[in-house]
């Protein structure tokens, strides 16, 4: 009997990881086929960003730094869409730039789709500055004048000939910056845009990065964090209640993935419990 139990504990301890992958794959697939609704609790750090955008007047300028590549689309694209839709619905002008080499396509995809939805015009309602390498140098230069690193926008039009840029020189002329990032660019925005030029800054980052940036929220260097898909779902929830996006138009992509998050987390927790029971029991036997 004891020998049988020991074998069970050993099996629990040495479970082939492919079984874990298989179970998670099955659970995710089943939840995707038969989804259910999960309530989302909105955290203060996400609400801060939403409320800030909500408090902005039509015609004011918000800057969005889009610093992620396709591999982070699942987590960051939904928040990018939600913020952009909220801004365009409120008549807020957007200044977009990119400090990640694979990011220009991310900006174009979002801006092309949402500008069409709200009938917004390039150069009048939004300006896409484009991509420049070396984030530190680029941010420092933008703090002096956007025209130093970006004499032309992404499409080759000189900034001075764009109506929206007439009264925009540097960070002093934008109400805030929201950096949506999957890498080290966030550190540069905190260090140079906020630290050097005192620009008001909020961030949207991947789940992996989120816990690293909470100290900056506490120190007041940033005024909000949207953390991964859960943060994006929170923002979508607020934007839906505000009437900026709707589930009928399939605009709540992160929110709709929350059931998958829930079921998968339950499975992961069960596997952790299983592994720990095996560990402690086999230790007790020895």
């Amino acid at each position, binding site marked *: 009997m004891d020998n049988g139990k020991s074998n069970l504990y050993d099996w629990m301890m040495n479970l082939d990881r492919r079984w874990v992958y298989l179970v998670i794959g099955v659970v995710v697939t089943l939840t995707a086929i038969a989804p259910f609704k999960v309530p989302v609790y909105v955290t203060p750090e996400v609400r801060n960003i939403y409320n800030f955008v909500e408090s902005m007047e039509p015609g004011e300028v918000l800057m969005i730094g889009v610093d992620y590549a396709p591999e982070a689309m699942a*987590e960051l694209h939904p928040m990018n869409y939600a913020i952009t839709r909220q801004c365009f619905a409120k008549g807020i002008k957007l200044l977009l730039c990119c400090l990640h080499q694979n990011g220009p396509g991310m900006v174009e995809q979002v801006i092309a789709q949402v500008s069409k939805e709200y009938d917004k015009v390039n150069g009048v309602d939004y300006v896409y500055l484009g991509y420049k390498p070396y984030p530190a140098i680029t941010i420092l230069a933008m703090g002096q004048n956007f025209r130093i690193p970006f004499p032309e926008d992404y499409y080759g039009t000189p900034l001075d000939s764009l109506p929206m840029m007439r009264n925009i020189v540097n960070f002093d002329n934008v109400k805030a910056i929201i950096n949506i990032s999957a890498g080290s660019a966030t550190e540069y925005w905190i260090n140079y845009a906020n630290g050097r030029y005192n620009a008001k800054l909020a961030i949207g980052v991947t789940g*992996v990065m989120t816990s690293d940036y909470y100290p900056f929220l506490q120190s007041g260097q940033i005024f909000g964090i949207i953390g991964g898909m859960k943060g994006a779902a929170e923002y979508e929830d607020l934007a839906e209640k505000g009437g900026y996006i709707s589930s009928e138009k399939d605009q709540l992509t992160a929110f709709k993935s929350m059931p998958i998050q829930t079921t*998968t987390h339950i499975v992961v927790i069960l596997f952790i419990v299983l592994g720990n029971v095996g560990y402690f029991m086999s230790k007790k036997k020895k």
Partner: protein
Amino acid sequence: MGTHDIIFNGIAAFLTLSIYTFLYKDNPFYKFAEHLVVGVSAGYFAVILYYNGFVPKLIVPLWEQGKLYYIIPAVLGVMIWTRFSRKWSWISRFSLAFYIGSGAGIAIPLYLQNFVLRQLSASMLPVGISTWPMITNILIIIGVFCALTYFYFSKEHTGAFGASAKIGIWTLMVGFGAGFGLTVMGRVSLLAERVVFIRDYLNELFRYLS
């Protein structure tokens, strides 16, 4: 969804599944998809860098605007390539010295200010037991102090000092736990998005075929 979307989304679905086959074991499908991702990313980056960095920051100022002093950074850039030669690699040190020197000059004061001093001042919080924020402030102060004692290795971790270090390691574990939880969430997000993509693609495919 038209024929064009069916074909290209089908390729995307096939590549997604090819990548996931690695979870079972390494195989030619995974190798093909992996090499394709690396190749496309590198090619895309090279083109983006050329048109957003090299052309506007060197070709245009030098050839179209006649700013001849742009030759200096161009030469410094070319000098870095001498690293490929054992005989001439010493030349690259001038470029690297300039690059590291200017980078450190820009970064160090601001990093010290924003990543050390601002964080230190954020740990100096008002304490009391009257309100909830003050209780959390006390927890932050205890957590920071005890975590720092764990990393003090000049004294043996015994007695009161050892107890403080013990609380410190628990504090660190809470931080790692939060990080792990968020990492799981991040990885699941990627899987969820791909599964939903394949589900939607199959729906569209069946609709198209019928």
